[in-house]
């Protein structure tokens, strides 16, 4: 059992990204905050075989996709690729309060949970619960 839980955090909104990152770091997580899906996937694949693989990923849904175009399913695409690379890997999707349907779709596609942005303390509890399982 590692000392720190390693989290891959992906969101193109810099302020959101930084804020969530800070909350997670405070909660004791080892956080890699990434602003685009391409970098995120590369980082994930790089570390998958290393001795410090990610334990969980937290992904925004609406971001520029792998072609760089703003795409409400960009997070879903990344989710598929992460699960492809490592089946069963725990993923939490971040969603705006008015996009919950798309987040539920992500859960149907294999995400462990979705989280409505804004209450970061709850996100910490959610990550801890998923890691415990």
């Amino acid at each position, binding site marked *: 059992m590692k000392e720190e839980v390693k989290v891959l955090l992906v969101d193109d909104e810099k*302020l*959101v990204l930084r*804020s969530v990152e*800070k909350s997670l770091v405070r909660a004791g997580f080892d956080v890699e905050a990434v602003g685009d899906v391409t970098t995120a996937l590369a980082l994930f694949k790089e570390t998958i075989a290393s001795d410090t693989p990610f334990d969980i990923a937290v992904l925004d849904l609406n971001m520029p996709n792998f072609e760089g175009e703003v795409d409400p399913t960009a997070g879903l695409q990344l989710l598929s690729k992460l699960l492809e690379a490592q089946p069963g890997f725990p993923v939490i999707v971040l969603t*705006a309060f*008015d*996009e919950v349907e798309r987040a539920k779709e992500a859960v149907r596609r294999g995400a462990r949970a979705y989280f409505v*942005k804004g209450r970061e303390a709850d996100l910490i509890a959610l990550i801890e619960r998923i890691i415990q399982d």
Partner: protein
Amino acid sequence: MDQTETKPKILYIDDAPSSRRLVERLLSAHYAFFEAPDGLTGIDQAVAIRPDLILVDLNLPQFTGYEVAARVKALLPNVPVVALTADMTEHVREHALASGCDGYIAKPINADTFEEQVAHFLGGRRETLEDESFRSAYQQTLVARMEEKVRELTRALKSNAELNAQRDQLLQEAQRRARLLEATAQVGRSVTSILDADALLKKTVDILCDVYGFYYAGIFLVDASGDWAVLRAGRGEAGAEMIAEGYKVKVGDQSLVGMAIAERRALLALDGAEEPLRLKNPHLPLTLSEMALPLMVGAGAQARIIGAVTVQSKEEAAFTVEDMTTLQTMADQLAIAIDNARLLKDLEATHAELVRTKTFEAIATATGEAIHWVGNKAAPIPGSISRVREDLVKYLLMACTLLKEAPPELREHKFAQILLAAEATLAEQSGNLDVEHLREELAHQPLRRLQRTLNLESIFEDLNIVEQSARSILNIKEDLIGPARQKHLEPVRLPELLQETVRSMAIPKEAVRFLLVEDVPPVLADPEQLAHVFINLIKNAMEAMYQVEDKKLFIWVRTADDPRFVVTDVTDNGSGIPPEIIDKIWVAFYTTKGDRGGTGLGLPACVKIINQLGGKITVESVVGEGTTFSVYLPVMKA
């Protein structure tokens, strides 16, 4: 040589061909024989050939032999005229002589003596009238005949007058028909050109009354229920009043219109006295006859009845069945036109509904996007605030922990008073904050860990996150509401406005170059709104140049090629806009600025403001070289 030149000429007037053949046979050997079958021909021939002797049958049709004799004697007094007759009436010979005959030969003709008798008259024999009373009797006969002729003439004149009257009437009929056809043609022309149903109906009643001279014309259309025919157009004040009061008749009731619609055929009511019920309408007191024509679309069993036309006259029996046929043709055309106009109206209504729906959709989409966008921008705020709060509490806890271990006199220090009071307040009003948990964290976390999370940079960063988030949310407000704000239009001189605006934006002087045509005419605008537009464009330009070392903002104000406009160019030497997104820049909530605070509303708001002023914004851009936004504003009218 022609023997007729030398032989004596004899003209024989008789309507019986057999008599003429006999006489010819008897005389043609020694005489030139001429003949005529009736009195008139005989007289004409006598004048033409000037015969030496005329033989005339007394019993001729039309002109009698007596009259022929009298006439010939007047024209050719020296030519002997001999009556030739089978008339055995008493005194026929005397009558003949009285009428002017010079002699008398009884029929049947005696072939043995006839030529001799003729020769005698040719030779100068003349019989004389012994009794003069026959002459006056003959004159009386003539008078009687004359009177008879006058009577005939009078009768003829009279019948002539009747014929004339008849002709006049036919002419009037024809003219009336022509006017009616003209009215029909006019309606026909109108119906193809007028697509607005109400205008069409109004025009039709006017044509009917103006051209045909009807006292009143009105058009009823069947309502949606099919039970009522509602007056939709009516001639003159009466029509206007009836329409104002929503005049309608029940389909199938006793009114002519109601019946015409129910029975689907044209109906006439020609006698005001006989049909008071049908014709009684307080608005149209003078109506004495009425015709109602159904308005039908389509033919046969599929025909739909859409209403009826009524035409009314102040005269009784003003309409004929033929009028009905002609006007029904017009009504058929009208019906189609009304139906077309209705279809068009439906189409327009559908279109308007579609536009409304689309507008609503656009608003809903824009609102949804706005809410989503605001939600995203606001998302980091609660996290940052709660961290700052935690950090504040942690600093307080640390200070108080140190204080408690400090010498007692230090605890009397005024700063210590404030810190301890704050700790007491925290104990009372910690709210959701788990103060004990924080205290434990502080106590147990190693220094490295504490250093990582608890520092002033982190607090400032969080405050900065809050500030930036709030600022981009506030920016959206001006962009959304700006164009709708109340405007104070006044003459604006663009060169001054632009210099002022740039000055207010604190842009490095060396980065801006102006080219301002001094005498450019003023434009009519709200200077604040206009400044907002240029601030937006200049901000965009500065942002496009944020990676450019040698920033060049070029502002050029001049009169446009079209002298009715003043154009302001805002040109940068920034990154340029890729062709594939150049159309999207006008779309609300489209932004390329990512986290740099763009709402995606700035440019759409600018376009809206400029459009409201009657101007336009265009853009030209080359990737890697820069972008020019051109703002066209109409020159203020003097």
